[in-house]
């Protein structure tokens, strides 16, 4: 009913209120948007193709049976299993992101942070990790050069 009492004044006030709210919201958005964009890190670009392991990484695999190498923006665990086969898996534990390691004695990949354990296919065998480790392609040519593709 009050609509009819003084339609002109009421609608002018509500129009102004709407305009004001829109203005404030617009102002907030124009401040927040650049700040949010500023804080969001740029996506990292790494090499897309296969990555060749360095001499010292290869030596490390010979000595420790595994090495953790940067491939693109990932950390990759390259290991040599008991049959001498090479395997490459994501080195970042799927639980809370610690770096895993290979235990040649038990043929297991373990994460020291909360006792996560994976088999050499990356499947979880024990502990809290919810997902398997991703596996990647790895080749060794006749000269012993190792290449990983993610």
């Amino acid at each position: 009913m009050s609509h009819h009492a003084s339609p002109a004044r009421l609608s002018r006030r509500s129009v102004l209120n709407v305009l004001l709210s829109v203005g404030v919201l617009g102002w907030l958005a124009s401040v927040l948007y650049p700040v949010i964009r500023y804080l969001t890190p740029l996506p990292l670009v790494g090499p897309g193709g296969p990555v060749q392991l360095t001499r010292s990484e290869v030596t490390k695999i010979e000595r420790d049976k595994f090495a953790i190498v940067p491939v693109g923006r990932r950390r990759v665990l390259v290991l040599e299993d008991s049959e001498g086969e090479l395997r490459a898996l994501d080195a970042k534990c799927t639980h809370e992101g610690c770096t895993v390691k290979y235990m040649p004695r038990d043929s297991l990949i373990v994460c020291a942070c909360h006792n996560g354990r994976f088999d050499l296919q990356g499947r979880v065998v024990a502990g809290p990790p919810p997902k398997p480790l991703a596996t990647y392609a790895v080749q060794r040519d006749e000269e012993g050069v190792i290449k990983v593709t993610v």
Partner: protein
Amino acid sequence: MSTARADKRLYRWIDERYGVSPLIEFLRHKEVPLGAHPLFWYFLGGTTLFFFAVQIVSGVLLLVYYQPGENTSYESIRYITTKVPFGWLVRSVHCWSAHLMIVSLVVHMLSTMMLKAYRPPRELTWLTGFLLFNLALGFGFSGYLLPWNELAFFATAVGTDSVKSVPVVGNWLLQVMRGGPDVTINTVYRFFALHICILPILTVGLITVHLIFIQRQGMAPPIAKHVAPRGMRFFPNFALRDLLWWILCLAALLVLALLLPYGPGIPGVEWELGQKADPLAPAYPGIKPEWYFLWIYQLLKEFPPHLFGLEGPQVCLAVVSLLMTTWALVPWLDRKARRDEPSPAFTDFGVGAMLFITFLMLKAWDIGAGAVADGGFPDPAAVARPCAWILLAVAVAVTAVRIAVYRDRWFVFSGAAVLHAVLHGLVGLPYLAAGAIAAAAAALATGFTVARGRTSAMPAGGGH
């Protein structure tokens, strides 16, 4: 005699310009309630403030040499501790005082919990205090990464990773925190800005609000005693005691910092620099966060990979958030205290929460694990058993004091915490199953006491 006249003249000079007499008059009448509880509990907030001041002074001194950066973070801290005269002392003071500040903050929070000082009209004082507690945890977490050593690297990787479980914005938030998908030197830059600029500004602002609230309302009188208690004049009687206590705190801080410059060597309370962070090195056993995060760290271990169709860490984060929110809302949940009646259930809620956290911390320290082979892990059952016994002993001692000294008669929550530990550690049930049984038992017992209409408060949803 002429100095006394000079003093008066100076006072007059200031008073004429700034009108300080009302302020002095106000201080004369400010009082601290006496006789209800030991005066000691009223010193803890001031103690926390004192250690915060030490943090600012020692932190600014560290800033003179500390430089965040891939090749400087670790190196500059090493330079401070090995080359700069008394640099080791400044760092030691900063680290010790950080821990002592959190200790006094926790005790301060518990004492206001036990005294029910949060009841109306002081709900917002509790809430600002709770936020300050969170900021202090933020200080500890961000400062821990700054030396860019191995321990800090992994602790931060794990600590930030749980952020990804936040619904909807989790992944974005994780990236913003880390400055990329992983913990790198970019994370150090962001944490550095937090640690030395954003958190200090927020903290000083909130402390101001917290203190203004206290100033306006005075100290909470004892609950359910409708007589005005005796008071002690704040100035100078209480303030001088405060000062004496601060001098004792400073002395204790310096003794600790001098004798144990790298901490007492308990995991979570040590700051040996160790190796520089190397993202390509595997994590090693014994990666632990600081002691006040240990309970969350241990809780993460207790969750299976999947639960209720969610991932374990997601459920864990939800549980921790629920517990923290409950803690923040205590002034509104505690209806008895709102009516200024004794509220034994919430006293017991505080004790129960402490027992719950203590048990997790004991487990996180792998108490009773003995020597463990390289790459091996302590047998969980062998750890849970001695921890449960220790918790039982602590609970018995605390309960005895509560019965004998405080005449407490309400033990449902502390009882549930003990039941949880016994079922898990001594009977051998999984941690979560034992917890579910204990929680159900507590809910039943609470419902039972309420149904019998006994004078016991209900924590939540008690109805009228």
